[in-house]
């Protein structure tokens, strides 16, 4: 699972709804990639004023083959970096580091699993779905988005999952509402023993709550702003409770992005809880702060 740093190349890029699905030739990245991990791409080319890499969940990974390994990602244009990625053509070089992060944990024994994806968040779930099925797990899926064009992978989900529920905020596709409106019935119908979720933070939290109400575990992949993506800078932290019940500010890039939903202190994300290890008393003067 050691990440590699390679100069990759765009094999293809196509629009899928509001997104760009990009396949990158990136030898070595796919070899050890596991569901829930991500790649970090340099953006802007040689003259770029954008310093930091951009993180994208691995949607697909093909270790060998004619191209010596490819990875697929799904990109939503947000700012300058993603706009640049969305402008790439076949053959354009892309600098890739990956696979990064801790993958989803897999059930030790076959169990029924519900996979919940919000927006492009579903991209990170298809590799997981495949792997779960390979382990004889029943897989049901729930996809939600603001609008129909922001759903990703509906067709693939239909093929992959035993059942698929779709929700949109505006009712443009599937049921009007949010994923947690339908999650309880899917869990019940499937007799689910675990929930996996990937999408915006409020959705992850809500999925965790639903899973908790059924007393089943929920694994979530969070998306925190990252400077390095490899664990050296400490920008991507959030308060997570450890096995020892101690809250620590843990790095979502290496200790995550996958966490057990019931370990994340959702109320305190964006703060340092007073009881976190090493929390300084509020408003106390500190000597340095880098």
């Amino acid at each position: 699972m050691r990440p590699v740093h390679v100069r990759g190349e765009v094999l293809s890029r196509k629009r899928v709804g509001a997104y760009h699905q990009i396949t990158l030739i990136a030898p070595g990245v796919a070899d050890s990639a596991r569901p829930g991990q991500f790649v970090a791409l340099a953006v802007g080319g040689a003259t770029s004023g954008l310093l930091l890499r951009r993180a994208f969940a691995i949607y697909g990974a093909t270790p060998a083959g004619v191209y010596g390994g490819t990875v697929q990602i799904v990109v939503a244009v947000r700012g300058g970096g993603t706009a640049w990625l969305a402008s790439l053509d076949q053959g354009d070089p892309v600098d890739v580091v990956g696979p990064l992060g801790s993958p989803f944990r897999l059930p030790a024994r076959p169990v029924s699993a519900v996979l919940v994806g919000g927006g492009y968040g579903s991209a990170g779930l298809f590799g997981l779905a495949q792997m779960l099925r390979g382990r004889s797990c029943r897989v049901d899926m729930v996809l939600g988005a603001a609008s129909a064009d922001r759903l990703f992978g509906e067709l693939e989900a239909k093929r992959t999952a035993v059942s698929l529920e779709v929700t949109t905020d505006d009712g443009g596709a599937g049921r009007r509402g949010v994923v947690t409106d339908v999650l309880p019935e899917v869990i019940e119908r499937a007799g689910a023993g675990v929930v996996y979720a990937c999408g915006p933070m409020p959705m992850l939290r809500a999925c965790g709550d639903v899973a908790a109400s059924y007393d089943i575990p929920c694994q979530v992949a969070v998306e925190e702003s990252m400077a390095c993506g490899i664990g050296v800078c400490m920008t991507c932290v959030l308060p997570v409770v450890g096995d020892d019940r101690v809250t620590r500010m843990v790095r979502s890039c290496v200790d995550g992005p996958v966490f057990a939903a019931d370990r994340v202190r959702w109320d305190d994300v964006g703060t340092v809880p007073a009881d976190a290890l090493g929390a300084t008393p509020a408003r106390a003067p500190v000597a340095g702060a880098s």
Partner: protein
Amino acid sequence: MRAVDFLTAPDVDMGAALAGRRFPNPVFTASGCAASGRELAQFFDVAELGGVVTKSVMLRPRAGRPTPRMAETPSGMLNSIGLQGPGIDAFCSHDLPWLVEQGARAVVSIAGSSVQDYAELAGRLAEQPGVAMVEVNISCPNVEDRGQVFGCDPGAASAVIRAVRAEAARGVPVFAKLSPDVTDIVAVARACVDAGAHGLSMINTLLGVVIDTDTLRPTLAGTTGGLSGPAIRPVAVRCVWQVHAAMPDVPILGMGGIATGLDALQFVLAGASAVSVGTAVFADPGAPVRVLAQLREALAERGFPRFSDAIGRAHRPPDPMPVGNENVDVTAEEAAEHDDAVR
């Protein structure tokens, strides 16, 4: 044709010395940009570097600032980590031994809230084997109380350095890491050297603010952050230039926006005896080793048989005929022109 042995990269003696301590080469990581080296070991052998400068460690474990802790800026970034770290005990039992085991040279950065803190930290480190050097971080730009910045006041800076020197192990160089956010960096540098610093690391980040134009509030939870990356490189080179001009015998560990071997060479020519690669690691995890290779190549191309020959070179007018360089042809006229530019 006459056989000529051209100087190539492998020929260049990259050995570096900082205050008498010898390092295999002059490329280091920068504090806070490499944690304690472990994560980077996935990408390269940390023993290949001159040294690994560890994240500033404090006496006790520290959770740091709330998030957001980062904002990207043009050719730079702002950070406000708040010195999150495990504290000196965990560092000494966990991180330091690992570095020693790898055969890396550990440069331990320390940070405190009081002169006493620094003294205690230095004392703790004096008991540890394998500390190649101590870097004293007296220059944190993103403190919540600006008055507390030791590095912005020659008096406070000198008190810290004196206290550290009193506790530090003999033979282990103590470097003071300076902030650029001062009117007169030479004055602070001098105060640190007078107080016993063997050398100076510079620069730390510049204090900055980014406003989020959507929330209409500062982007960073802590409002201010430290600006790093190529954006600040000219300021960093200027600081090195000024301090080396004032105190040519004091070794400088130069940093601030180094992303390539030529960037590193700028610092060296300006007076740095070694360099740290910081933010560039976020863009390229292998940046330190790449910078080292590029620097070696650049030195060979310019006819420097020894890295050390390049230190401070930009302060002197060009040689009429640079040593060992077949490609550069400096005429007397050009040399005179350059002389003119010296002030």
